[in-house]
């Protein structure tokens, strides 16, 4: 099933389950207010964008949603669970995966090992089992191999299996980052400026990849690249100075007066 932006608005009204909900998030660092009362709801299955000028707080919001940073006040719910105070790795295990903008992969490991790291928190076997090849160990690795094959196929990394992550081309590294995220079979995928630094061709490939993996998942994207947002997102939230300004389909959002003035002078494409 292929989701186009047009599907998303019907999706939004039909969905009763939200995937991510943030309620009145405030985040203060010492004297600086990074987030000033942000609320949002991401519906299950939609591709949701978060945009805003530099320093507007979208990265902070993103970190709060993923559980990496704790909000000063407010509530974050993911898949029905209150994760506001939850430890980041537990948030991850409840079905959330994310990619990072910088240092997106495990640089010193091969592509294959990267995928392994992405998966091993779901392994059940122990050190003893590893040494003696217990049934648990064989189960784990069988499942891992199958998943790895699938993920490598989807992201087109099959031939790069044994290559070191740090020598991969930039666009390929980003795909690897998505691959690693996919290994834990997440229901929600957070993508942090995934298209940053990509050229036109790489961006197109990336958009196609996301479209391919979107069915059955909820995706939240923070981006600067408006082409990505327009092609992928059903709805987008604009954050300016830590405040939410408007949530709507990307075309509508870009017509909003405050959004235009916030971006005046900024070169986005």
């Amino acid at each position: 099933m292929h989701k186009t932006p047009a599907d998303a608005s019907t999706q939004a009204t039909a969905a009763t389950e939200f995937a991510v909900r943030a309620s009145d998030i405030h985040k203060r660092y010492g004297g600086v207010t990074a987030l000033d009362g942000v609320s949002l709801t991401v519906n299950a299955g939609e591709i949701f964008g978060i945009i805003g000028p530099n320093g507007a707080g979208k990265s902070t919001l993103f970190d709060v949603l993923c559980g990496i940073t704790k909000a000063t006040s407010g509530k974050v719910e993911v898949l029905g669970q209150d994760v506001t105070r939850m430890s980041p790795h537990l948030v991850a295990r409840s079905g959330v995966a994310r990619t990072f903008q910088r240092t997106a992969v495990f640089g010193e490991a091969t592509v294959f090992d990267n995928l392994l790291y992405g998966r091993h928190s779901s392994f059940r076997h122990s050190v003893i089992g590893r040494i003696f090849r217990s049934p648990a160990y064989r189960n784990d690795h069988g499942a891992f191999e199958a998943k790895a094959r699938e993920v490598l196929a989807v992201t087109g990394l099959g031939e790069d299996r044994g290559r070191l992550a740090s020598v991969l081309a930039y666009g390929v590294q980003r795909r690897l980052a998505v691959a690693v995220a996919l290994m834990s079979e997440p229901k929600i995928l957070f993508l942090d400026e995934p298209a940053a630094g990509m050229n036109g061709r790489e961006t197109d490939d990336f958009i196609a990849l996301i479209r391919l993996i979107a069915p059955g998942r909820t995706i939240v994207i923070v981006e600067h690249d408006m082409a990505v947002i327009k092609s992928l997102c059903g709805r987008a939230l604009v954050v300016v100075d830590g405040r939410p300004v408007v949530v709507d389909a990307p075309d509508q959002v870009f017509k909003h007066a405050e959004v235009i003035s916030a971006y005046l002078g900024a070169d986005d494409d």
Partner: protein
Amino acid sequence: MPDLPTEAAMTAPPAAAIPTLAGAQGSRVRPLAALGVAIVAAVLFGTLVTNSFIVTIAGYTCAFSLFALSINIMLGGLGEVPLGQCVFFGIGGYGVGIGMIKFGLPFELAAALSMAVSVAAAALIGALTLRLTGAYFSIVSWGLSGVALVAALNLTDVTGGPLGMYGFPPITVASIPLANPRGYFFVTVTVLILAVLLLHAVRDSRFGAAMESVRQNRHLAQSVGVDIFRQRLKAFLLSATLAALGGALCVPYAQIVTPEIFSVGNTVDALLMVLLGGSQLLVGPIIGAVIFTVIPHYLELDPNVRILLFSTAIVLIMIFAPGGLHQISSALIRRFKRKSGAQDPR
């Protein structure tokens, strides 16, 4: 659209299907063969070498290597610099001192108890400090060794104060007298080989993979579900045990335990050994230990000269070859053997 590879185009997974998780790059020596070589070499060395001074030094090197290995669990394994690791080394030493001299325990029991104390201390310290990373962790680590030093100096009733603990009864392990150079060497080398086997198993395990992923990219590891704090704590406990064991096994050589065991000089020594061998090679610290235990004992260096030279060596290594000998040799090997994949320039 990304080109989807056909099934045939994908390379088949390696037959053994055991992913090799070791962080080291370069040639991977088959473990069993290496083990065999090590055992044979140790046996030959211990039986054939006649100079008892060398054999004793070799034994001490093996014991101190345990300490160096423990530092590398933190440095090469977690990417933290445990400037105060000598706390656990000292607990090992003082455990043996207090256990044998004050309580008349046999060496094995005293050593085991000191390892237990070390683990307990590490659990407590780790629970408090392992949420810190980088410089903060190093500062606190260093600080604790400072506290330990002051404590050892002041708690004269327990530790013998500045003069230390001496006057050990003959130390034996499983009835092997450690005063005998060959006995000392065989015991320490056996322990060392067992320790290396253990670390190798850990490295290839899920725990090892978790640690490696944390070291390479903490935030990414967390976002794939790794409980960073727990993994770090496990690593810390392991390193503390090993350090204490090393400290205990160094006592038969020195025959005295003084507060200096908590001094930063030991950490400098061990750090240098780790860096020289290469922190990414499991046995790197041992290589470094061999080089830097043997040399000073022939040169009879004044302790301050030793610190000066070793510290300078550390600085030079960090500038020119941060990966140590292992990095240098790997680079050389790669130049001769062109391996695909790892060779493509960026």
